[in-house]
């Protein structure tokens, strides 16, 4: 006899309140970040010592009418920030045992991630507006 309610059983979720969603998303974002990180490192190295105008040109230059570098930068930041929330969640789960502190830290991490994402996208849109 199972002590699980039928609803719990059909959802496939145990005492942790969630299934493999976190694990799977962490792996998928990790996989996406491999090529994105290699691209970002190469791009950043290519911008060492660049002036503001040169950096603007790099970010806004288009091929076939599409500003690939701006799109890749935005994608890199968004997926990084998502991967970061998943990773810091695990760190907090492991070391912070007080429920209150855990909640405050998780909200801080998510708020920080949201702010970084919004600020970055706003900056990229503003940069796109300069051309």
């Amino acid at each position, binding site marked *: 006899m199972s002590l699980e309610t039928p609803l719990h059983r059909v959802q496939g979720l145990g005492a942790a309140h969630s299934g493999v969603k976190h694990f799977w998303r962490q792996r998928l974002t*990790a996989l996406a970040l491999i090529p994105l990180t290699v691209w970002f490192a190469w791009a950043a190295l290519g911008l*060492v010592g*660049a*002036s503001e105008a040169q950096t603007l040109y790099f*970010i806004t230059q288009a091929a076939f009418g599409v500003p690939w570098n701006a799109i890749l930068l935005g994608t890199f930041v968004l997926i990084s920030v998502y991967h970061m929330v998943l990773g810091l969640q695990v760190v907090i789960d492991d070391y912070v045992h007080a429920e209150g502190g855990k909640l405050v830290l998780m909200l801080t991490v998510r708020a920080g991630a949201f702010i*970084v994402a919004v600020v970055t996208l706003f900056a990229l849109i503003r*940069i796109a507006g300069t051309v």
Partner: protein
Amino acid sequence: MARARPLSPHLTHYRWYSTMATSIVHRITGVGLSLGTLLLAWWLVAVASGPEAYQSFMAVARNPLGQFVLFGYAWALSFHLLNGIRHLAWDIGYGFTPAKANRNSWIVIVLSVVLAAAAFAAAWTGHAGYNQ
């Protein structure tokens, strides 16, 4: 007062292995890179905010402390990337034997430092900056 209870062995009781080091450093670099994301956002905001904001960002990036932080970011990024690939390899069942685990952890440690050092060597000797 609570009586001192026997503890199971933890961090300070084990001899350091390369695999243990990479596991701990993976987490530390992950937290470090989270802070590094703020630098990335700052850089983009500076680029978007005009020449003066960009100049003040570059002044910080160029001074010794800024270079030290950027080197840390570059190394953390290469370490977390390389060790992350190791993690994904484990997920498909590769790299668990002691010999492979030891070898791969040393590859990650050495290669991450080599990559970060190579990037900075290229930057300082004028071989970077080709996107201009």
